[in-house]
């Protein structure tokens, strides 16, 4: 067989979304790859310019469908910077609670999809089963399982229901036991190690050159985690470690994510304890009228333009489960953000595909791309 290009995507089991990986192969060997994104572009950044600050939150949940809270938090941090609003401390703890549970949910989802790419069906269902418990928790205080619309500029929508913290602790205990099972099914299996060791290697220097962030970067030995290096919300008050590994291969990424799952449990135990001890308001006291809850509209067109609200720009960067996400919000004094711009970590991570795919087998594409943790919703936005 001579060389040929095959299109893996946009409808292909490997893609886990809607994008196209063009692969040039010779037999079973990969000679060249060419990722094509843009099939899921919905213009979220442009739509945001036509929405009130809080309404944009509904779009953020659709930005990344497995890590909606991380993106809500990202946008809300930038908006609060642009609008000069400080949320109460309890709201910040609640946001961290959302973030870390979301990280668990996202990483378990990644685990499920990743092992399924390797042909392991049962851990896929174990992962989905355990993620469901996290979604149950989300539903109990936001009212939805994926599109939460929970965070607001200046705080969060509502406080936790009674008994939430006990249920959260139960879930954390259950998850801690399940992590061991995950490891036994993957690391304990020689076939898994043979498939994943020394696969898809991307060294730290290449990661930096291509803007690759998140677990891929930490798996290459780079000790960088925005929660520690550029802290936001209440992360400085919390005690946790940054997971790193030095293999730079698929196994190392697996190890980093599994360690992050454990660290998230550790963070969440502290957060839940804090929330138990410190009741308080979850919305800022002083808000512009149109941001207040309940969410009231602007009665007469153009009314805000008559008034002088402070202008400003907001920038935030958040350690999303997939990597470092960044947001930039410009407030020109109107009821809508003037401009919203996001930096998607996965976009950078899959743009470097040529670096970590060429030279391996066709059968290696699913585990390597699986270890990148692709979420196309945020790539195309």
């Amino acid at each position, binding site marked *: 067989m001579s060389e040929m290009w095959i299109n893996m995507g946009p409808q292909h*089991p490997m893609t886990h979304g809607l994008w196209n990986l063009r692969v040039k192969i010779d037999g079973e060997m990969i000679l060249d790859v060419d990722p094509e994104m843009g099939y899921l572009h919905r213009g979220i950044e442009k739509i945001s310019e036509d929405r009130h600050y809080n309404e944009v939150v509904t779009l953020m949940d659709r930005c990344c469908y497995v890590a909606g809270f991380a993106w809500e938090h990202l946008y809300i941090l930038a908006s609060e910077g642009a609008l000069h609003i400080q949320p109460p401390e309890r709201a910040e703890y609640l946001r961290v609670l959302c973030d870390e549970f979301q990280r668990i949910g996202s990483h378990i989802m990644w685990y499920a999809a990743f092992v399924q790419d390797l042909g392991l*069906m*049962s851990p896929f269902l174990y992962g989905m089963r355990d993620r469901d418990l996290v979604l149950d928790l989300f539903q109990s205080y936001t009212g939805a399982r994926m599109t939460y619309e929970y965070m607001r500029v200046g705080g969060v929508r509502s406080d936790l229901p009674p008994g939430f913290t006990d249920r959260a602790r139960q879930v954390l205990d259950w998850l801690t036991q399940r992590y061991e099972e995950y490891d036994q099914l993957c690391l304990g299996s020689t*076939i898994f190690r043979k498939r994943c060791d020394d696969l898809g290697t991307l060294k730290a220097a290449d990661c930096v050159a291509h803007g690759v962030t998140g677990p891929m970067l930490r798996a290459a030995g780079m000790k960088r985690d925005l929660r520690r290096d550029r802290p936001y919300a209440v992360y400085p008050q919390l005690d946790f470690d940054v997971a790193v590994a030095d293999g730079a291969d698929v196994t190392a990424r697996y190890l980093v994510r599994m360690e992050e799952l454990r660290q998230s449990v550790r963070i969440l135990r502290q957060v839940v304890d804090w929330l138990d001890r410190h009741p308080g308001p979850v919305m800022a006291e002083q808000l512009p009228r149109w941001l207040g809850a309940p969410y009231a509209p602007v009665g007469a067109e153009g009314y805000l333009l008559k008034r002088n609200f402070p202008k400003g720009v907001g920038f935030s960067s958040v350690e999303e489960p997939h990597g470092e996400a960044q947001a930039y919000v410009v407030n020109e004094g109107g009821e809508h953000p003037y401009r919203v711009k996001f930096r998607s970590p996965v976009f950078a991570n899959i743009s470097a595909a040529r670096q970590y795919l060429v030279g391996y087998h*066709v059968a290696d594409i*699913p585990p390597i791309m699986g270890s990148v943790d692709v979420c196309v919703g945020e790539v195309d936005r």
Partner: protein
Amino acid sequence: MAPLTLYTVSNDLVSSLLTALGNAIPNPVGAWLKSPDLITGLSVLVFAAILLAASMLNTILLIWWERKLLGRFMDRRGAMHVGYAGLLQNFADGLKLFRKNTFQPREADSLGFYTGPAAYMVTSLILFGILPISSGWNSGALPLTLLLALAIFSFAPLFIFISAWSSNNKYSLMGGMRSAAQMIAYEVPILLAVVAVVIVAGSFDLTTIVYEQQNYWFWGPLVVALIVFVAGMLAEMERIPFDLPEAEAELVEGWNTEYGGMLFAFFMLADYLRALVGSILVVLLFLGGWTLPTWVPAAATSFPLAGIFWFMLKTYLVFGLFVWVRAALPRVRTDQLLRIGWNRMIPLSLLSIFLAALLVTVKCLPFLGCVPSPGS
């Protein structure tokens, strides 16, 4: 009294029917109806129909068994709504596939595209005419049933490759290539492992091999051969961890990507037919077929159809082992698969032949047990 086999039963049935009919109808039609040639021909047809029905029924039951087992392995329930515990679910699925439109890619080669699935199905079905399910099942006493079964079993890569190539799809072609390479690579260790069994049993006839195991099942003394045979069968059946030809993560659906509707159902059924044959071969060669250990009370073997019952029970348990493997292990890579085949399995199978020869010579091995001398 001649042993009661499935063929004699159908022969008796047909001949009594035709004789009654021929007596009622005046000659020459009556005489023609009573002619032995017609009776023989019709009873072969009836025999084949019963065999077909039994094998298809078992295949569909096997799919149900896998779905239920896999469900429990995956912390879910499996099929549960159509029929009792979902027993009829697969019939419903088959009916759905039957009603679907079959289509063909524009550039596909019609001849190969349509003959591939049919031939794959037929060669898998032929095997059931050969395999003895119990003492009263097999049709004829062929001396080389084992060899014949393995020969027919190894037709498959040819037809898979034909249908993959004629689909005019790159994924299908890659899947077909992988399938051919994998099946051919694993034919060799399978045959060598079988040679070990043949050495100990002293026969290529499956019935004889089973009767040789009346006292000692071969899995104990020939455990190395068993391991090689099971691993090889996993590869031949294209099941996880050796399901590379249809590795859905990278090759969509492998060599049957372009097939839909009933043609897909043909492939699906034939896959499970081959899985059934593989399990049956493991039972026949290593687990004593329809016999039970001597210490089992006689009541367990004396009820009607006891042989078939125990045989099918063993078969389904062996298939359960395959399902267990599927639930727990990831898929290997092409080069790793071939390396396992050529570098590990073939030396192991040669070792098993050596062990078998040793066993036949010295009769007893420490920790491995004893065998009776062939033909005793």
